[in-house]
């Protein structure tokens, strides 16, 4: 692998995706002419993000499906994008995970080349361009629809962005969801959300939303108490991206199940 060296007028600057285009051939996914049978590849599903007093909580279930098969029980759909932001994905798992990898690298590459960090809005725009680049694949059925959330250090506040397959970027004020269980998850969040929630209240709400989505949508996985597989939940605040450990989630699910038992 040769060291990339460009003449001044031809330099790709801090853009890693552009550097990649200059140095490697395009991926086969963009050259397909017929749709692929959706039972042949994995889909990731429900993710939720909620703004609260200190920042944002992001969460995603762990199931990937190919048609009516469960293709993976432990897939991760919530990732740190950099220190103060995170990305949650739904849609075709292969292109989505690849997009996250490229997005993480894009942010780090910019930071190293430029010596400064992109603004939160700048990061959201970068993701938007990547989704737009995936549009030909999305039209073949391999859509990727992420949520981007982060803590805006300039404003001192959490912010949420949702996207569509064309790369459309829409900022949400309070909460957003994506994936096949999004309708059920959103309804739970919508009915219970209130301004300035605490971390504990928000984490409980996000788990309840995923629980109800898993109850109604076969492509969304609930907590797997036997295999000890729980959703990925992370908070993004002034302290950065912090993922919650499984012990805390197990305890919260236990009390959620107790509450549901008592009320039914």
């Amino acid at each position, binding site marked *: 692998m040769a060291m*990339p060296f460009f003449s001044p007028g031809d330099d790709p600057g801090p853009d890693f995706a552009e*550097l990649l285009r200059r140095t490697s051939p395009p991926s086969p996914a963009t050259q397909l002419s017929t749709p692929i049978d959706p039972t042949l590849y994995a889909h990731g599903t429900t993710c939720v993000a909620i703004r609260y007093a200190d920042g944002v909580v992001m969460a995603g279930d762990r199931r990937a499906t190919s048609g009516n098969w469960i293709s993976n029980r432990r897939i991760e759909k919530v990732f740190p994008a950099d220190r103060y932001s995170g990305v949650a994905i739904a849609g075709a798992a292969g292109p989505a995970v690849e997009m996250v990898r490229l997005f993480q690298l894009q942010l780090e590459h910019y930071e*190293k080349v430029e010596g400064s960090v992109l603004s939160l809005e700048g990061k959201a725009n970068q993701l938007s361009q990547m989704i737009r680049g995936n549009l030909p694949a999305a039209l073949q059925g391999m859509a990727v629809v992420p949520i981007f959330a982060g803590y805006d250090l300039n404003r001192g506040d959490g912010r949420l962005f949702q996207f569509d397959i064309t790369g459309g970027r829409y900022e949400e004020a309070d909460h957003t969801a994506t994936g096949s269980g999004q309708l059920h998850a959103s309804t739970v969040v919508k009915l219970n959300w209130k301004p300035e929630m605490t971390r504990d209240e928000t984490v409980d709400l996000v788990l309840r939303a995923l629980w109800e989505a898993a109850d109604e949508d076969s492509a969304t996985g609930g907590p797997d108490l036997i295999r000890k597989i729980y959703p990925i939940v992370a908070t993004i605040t002034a302290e950065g991206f912090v993922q919650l450990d499984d012990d805390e989630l197990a305890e919260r699910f236990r009390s959620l199940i107790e509450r549901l038992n008592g009320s039914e």
Partner: protein
Amino acid sequence: MSMPFYVAPEQVMKDRADYARKGIARGRSLVGCTYDDGILLCAENPSQMLHKISEIYDRIAFAGVGKYSEFDQLRIAGVRHADLKGYSFSREDVDARSLANQYAQMLGQIFTHEMKPMEVDILVVEVGRKPVDDQLFHIQYDGLVIDEADFTVLGGDADAVRDRVAASYEPGAALDVALRAAVQALAGSERTLGAGELEVAVLDRNARRRCFRRISRADLAELLTD
């Protein structure tokens, strides 16, 4: 038709080397050394914006002396090389040795084939999981690679500074001890250097992923006065 004068290749190489060496000696020096929890890079640099020391990858850092625009171009090429390699293979597969070889080839090529050699001396360092795995590669303007043990000095009056570092260097010292020794060696006996004239960064062996950390001038002042 006029014929160019014949100049012996030895003379051409010597002239280019002299030119590059003069440019590098004009600047200030930079010290790189290992300490108990990583690698310390310390440069005399009054500018807070034009860095001589930078991050390349998770465990790899870059330092350059000489002409800023030239070593910065090399720095960016290194970041690109490392990020592309980590993306194609895995983050673990990015190493300082292969990066140093790439730099050596590029500098050697420019030294022999271009009109003007690059007026730079660069340092590529990688912090290991254990102290024995720490690596310091010093690459010169003509592409010569030197694999240094423990410490190295680049730029300015490098020989004098190297002698002073050699006299005070203790393997496995704590960060503040190593830093004070490096600053003393940069300053010499007749001056003292304050936090405002220094640029300092470390590769912290115990960091989770990205080991590179700049030491702010406030923290630096504290470390120097302890």
